């Protein structure tokens, strides 16, 4: 067990280190996210109250699109350098490869959220630092990276790569989209927990189902 | 109530149209493949 955990930590550390050195993923994601927030401001000239209601939805759209950019990059190193084979030989138990990728993608999205949330709050003059909203976004990010990592590992091996991932991912992600926006809106409007609790449950269930399926199925992605 | 008849007609035109188009496409595809197979068998 200890061996497995340390392997996992090493793999995660490898991905994070790679990203820290190049800062490819993060810069692209951040630039895209901040620009999108600006665009949304001009696209939707609303009064403050309407803006407040729409905030979780807009925020989640921005996070989803930026997250997709990041996902596209996450397997590029493996693809270009052919490290898949090296990883398979070096690591006992393929599940940890996937889990490590998923956790590092998830952490990437957390960084994104941590930076986007204050910027959004500033630009729209709205306090988004509500614990419920943050929890919702974290759960959403976990579900997103669970589904996204598995699909990205497949699209990285196809001809069309970047173009294909959104097409594959977004239909699958529908329950997450609905749940995050509905829960977020409920939280921001101060409604009682009981009214939006079911959405949080849906998020949790989705994350568990995706993670489980991915662990079962990942062998077939890497091995011939 | 009378003008829902047009929608009724439209609905069944769509149904049989789509089914017919798909079956037609299958027939054409089949012909193309049978031709290729008989060419292969001859050579």
């Amino acid at each position, binding site marked *: 067990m200890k061996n497995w955990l340390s392997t996992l930590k090493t793999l995660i550390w490898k991905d994070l280190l790679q990203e820290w050195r190049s800062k490819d993923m993060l810069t692209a994601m951040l630039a895209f996210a901040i620009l999108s927030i600006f665009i949304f401001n001009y696209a939707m000239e609303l009064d403050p109250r309407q803006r407040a209601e729409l905030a979780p939805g807009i925020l989640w759209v921005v996070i989803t699109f930026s997250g997709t950019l990041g996902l596209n990059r996450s397997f590029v190193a493996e693809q270009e350098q052919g490290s898949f084979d090296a990883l398979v030989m070096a690591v006992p138990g393929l599940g940890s490869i996937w889990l490590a990728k998923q956790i590092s993608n998830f952490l990437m999205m957390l960084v994104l959220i941590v930076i986007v949330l204050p910027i959004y709050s500033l630009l729209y003059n709205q306090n988004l630092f509500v614990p419920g909203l943050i929890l919702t976004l974290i759960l959403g990010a976990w579900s997103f990276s669970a*589904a996204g990592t*598995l*699909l990205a590992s*497949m*699209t990285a*091996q*196809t*001809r*069309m790569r970047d173009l*294909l991932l959104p*097409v*594959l991912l*977004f*239909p*699958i992600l*529908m*329950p997450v989209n*609905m*749940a995050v926006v*509905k829960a977020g809106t409920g939280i921001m409007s101060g409604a009682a927990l009981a009214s939006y609790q*079911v*959405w949080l449950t*849906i998020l949790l*269930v*989705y994350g568990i*189902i*995706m993670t489980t*399926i991915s662990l079962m*199925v990942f062998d*077939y*992605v890497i091995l*011939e | *109530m*009378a*003008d*829902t*008849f047009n*929608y*009724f007609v*439209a*609905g*069944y035109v*769509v*149904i049989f149209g*789509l*089914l017919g188009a*798909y*079956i037609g496409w*299958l027939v054409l*595809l*089949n012909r193309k*493949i*049978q031709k*290729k*197979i008989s060419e*292969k068998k001859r050579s």
Partner: protein
Amino acid sequence: MLSWNKKLSFLAIFSGALILLAFGLVLFYAPVEQNMGVVQKVFYFHVAAAWLGMLGFLVAAVCAVLYLRKANLKLDAVMASSVEIGLLFTAIANFTGMIWARPVWNTWWTWDPRLTTMTIMAFTYIAYFLLRRGIDDPTKKARFGSIYLIIGFATVPLTFFSARLLRTIHPTIFGTAGTGDMAMTPAMYQTMGFSIFAFSVLFALLLIVRSRLRLNQQWLEEQEALEQEEEFGEVANG
């Protein structure tokens, strides 16, 4: 190498007859619904198409699981054909749903949970074909396709549950007459049941024919690949 035979002809004629019979029932046997008028009759084939659309995806998902257990390209042929036909029936269900909704509820699109879920599923299965297109190797194509089908199918219950939570203006079929609700008489139930049966037979026919077509295509591709190898061999040696 698989060609048309007598059994298929029989099935085709049987299927065609059933569909015509069902249409006859719709036209002459089923009564005209009091609230909605004649357009309600579209509903019989609409429901049948919707059910068969779901069945197509279920068959594909089962094939996907079986394929991962034991790689057999015949399963892949059935899988892809089932998704294709499922898409066809889903398209029929969606369009007839819109045509039915327009005069009855004065809107083209109702964010009805069932229709919404089916549309999202349709997008998933179109994406499935795009994924297949991006991969050249047949076994990899089948393998990745299967994985995506399994994921796609696993999200359907959650998608439906979420969509239903969000909104409902689909009529409750089995209820008493009300505003926009349908009053179902026994004749209507029978017509609906028979339509579903007729469509099921049609689905089976289309699935068999399409799968055989795909297997023939696979065989052709294998032959061409073999020929190319021979050519290379000659060029290299000669």
